[in-house]
């Protein structure tokens, strides 16, 4: 990679300067380059030691058998082959994909709905109150909100079931049935993240040119047509960003499940990250856990790269 190479090179001398003697200019540019490297050094070192190095190590470990006590033994792609026969992996990946699908649809659906509603001409104070209420859960640790929700979800003492039975419904075993344990995880995930996605949509909606909407209205377009033909295309960037963020976030879902259901009953609500943690840190099967983690990395990389490509080069967007 081109990461470390530049640090050892001296900057090429510029062909010509904007004034002054060429030698002096080169010295200035060298100094500037040196400053650049010094300024970025802590970040680059942190990146090499805590991101790139571990990433490479994880890929290497994924090709080994390693139980921490004895040295890693190279086994080629055995760990990857093993995944295909691992039923627990299939279950946990299946659950995770369900969480991802639910997150994409529910978070973005509700977020867009609330964003459109909030974006109307409402009294400023009201807009502020709504924004705050929807956004606040996003600032609170997922662990904390999950702790609150697990109390609300309790079968006999939880207030959710209290209201459900008060309305004539049956008590739901939110946390201990194989279907509803997943539903509970999805509810908490949606509830916590909808506010952030909503803010992204609101910011995008405010960029939609008002005169364009007015012109369409003059031409007799109804609100639905305006929404469908003008708003949706205009906010596509934000939509895409939100979808990417929700996919990546939901693939990594972890602590809410720990608090709500502990992955249970059985593996009914267990996510793939929980499974990785279990294989790595309870069974100390580090090689296999690394292989699963690498598949997760590949998925997230793919999703991100698609986002990068579809968005007009944000790196060089100066």
């Amino acid at each position, binding site marked *: 990679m081109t990461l470390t190479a530049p640090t050892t090179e001296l900057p090429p001398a510029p062909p010509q300067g904007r004034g002054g003697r060429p030698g002096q200019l080169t010295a200035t540019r060298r100094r500037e380059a040196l400053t650049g490297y010094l300024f970025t050094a802590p970040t680059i070192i942190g990146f090499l030691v805590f991101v790139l190095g571990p990433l490479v190590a994880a890929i290497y470990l994924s090709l080994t058998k390693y139980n921490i006590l004895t040295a890693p033994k190279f086994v080629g792609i055995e760990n990857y082959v093993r995944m295909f026969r691992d039923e627990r992996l299939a279950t946990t990946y299946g659950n995770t994909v369900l969480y991802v699908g639910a997150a994409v649809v529910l978070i973005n659906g509700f977020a867009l709905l609330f964003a459109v509603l909030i974006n109307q001409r409402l009294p400023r104070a009201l807009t502020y109150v709504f924004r705050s209420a929807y956004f606040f859960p996003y600032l609170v640790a997922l662990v904390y909100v999950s702790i609150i929700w697990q109390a609300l979800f309790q079968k006999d003492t939880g207030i959710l079931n*209290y209201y459900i039975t008060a309305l004539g419904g049956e008590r739901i075993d939110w946390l201990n049935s194989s279907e509803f344990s997943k539903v509970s995880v999805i509810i908490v995930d949606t509830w916590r993240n909808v506010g952030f996605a909503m803010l992204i949509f609101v910011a995008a909606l405010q960029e939609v040119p008002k005169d364009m909407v007015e012109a369409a209205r003059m031409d007799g377009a109804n609100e639905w047509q305006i929404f469908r033909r003008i708003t949706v295309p205009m906010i596509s960037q934000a939509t895409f960003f939100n979808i990417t963020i929700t996919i990546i976030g939901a693939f990594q879902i972890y602590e809410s499940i720990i608090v709500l259901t502990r992955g249970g009953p059985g593996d009914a609500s267990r996510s793939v990250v929980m499974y990785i943690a279990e294989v790595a840190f309870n069974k100390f099967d580090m090689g296999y856990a690394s292989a699963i983690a690498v598949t997760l990395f590949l998925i*997230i990389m793919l999703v991100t790269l698609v986002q990068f490509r579809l968005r007009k080069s944000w790196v060089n*967007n100066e």
Partner: protein
Amino acid sequence: MSNTNALSAGGGTARRSRPRPGIGKSISVALLVLGAIGMVAPFLWMFTTSLRDASHAYDLPPQWLPTEWDWTNYTDAVSGPVPILRNMLNSAVIAIAVSIGMIVTAPMAGYAFAKLDFPGRNSIFVALLSSLMVPAQVTIIPLFLLMRAFGLLDNPLSLILPGVTGALGVFLLRQFFLGLPQEIIDAARMDGATAWQTYRLIALPLAKNAVSTLGVITFLGSWNAYFAPSIFLNSTDTATLPLGLVLMLGPYGAGNVAQVMAATTIAIAPALIVFLVAQRWIIASLTQSAVKG
């Protein structure tokens, strides 16, 4: 749930609102109010329960507003078997150290990537940005082995060291410095300021808001973190607050719910303070990178 109804009714509003805008608006305000209640209610329940006697914590029908202001659960929570105050201190030390590190390293790097010319600048930046797509779960095993090799497991440094630098902060600050007119930098250099002086005395003060936002975001991210702490820390004395609260809750929510809610209320306080003080900046900086560009 009421939310499902909200979704279908919302579609209807959009279609029907034109002939009767007044009604459309009241429907949408009603929906927003309903949603907002759904967002706030769990926190309200948490707070009310934290003020109730433990034996009444699960009384039904639920009470939404505190009827008495009994702080016993708070004193019980902090003096219980899980050292919540200690855990809070651990969280605070880690979060403060990480935030300070980040607001020193990220603006420097962001400035260099935006305003200094050096070979490899763009490729290094792209490589750095690409670390945003490396999930923590992939690096956690090698990091665990690294921390173990250096004897840093069960030590706050295992969370501080990887936290003091990061691509997101560099990205945010680079965006800010790109918007800074080059003339300001050039003028300072003309006047004989060194690169460091130009950065420290001219550029950095102008980035005050961006740096504060970064500090706040970093602090909250660390304060709220669960995954890495749950793997690197394994004793109640080194545990951070989220770990302490999960311990306190116990398996299957068996802990004393009123005390747990009291502790959770304390744990949420920093987020609430940040929210009240800095909500606007955070919203602005989080949303701008998504919408522009």
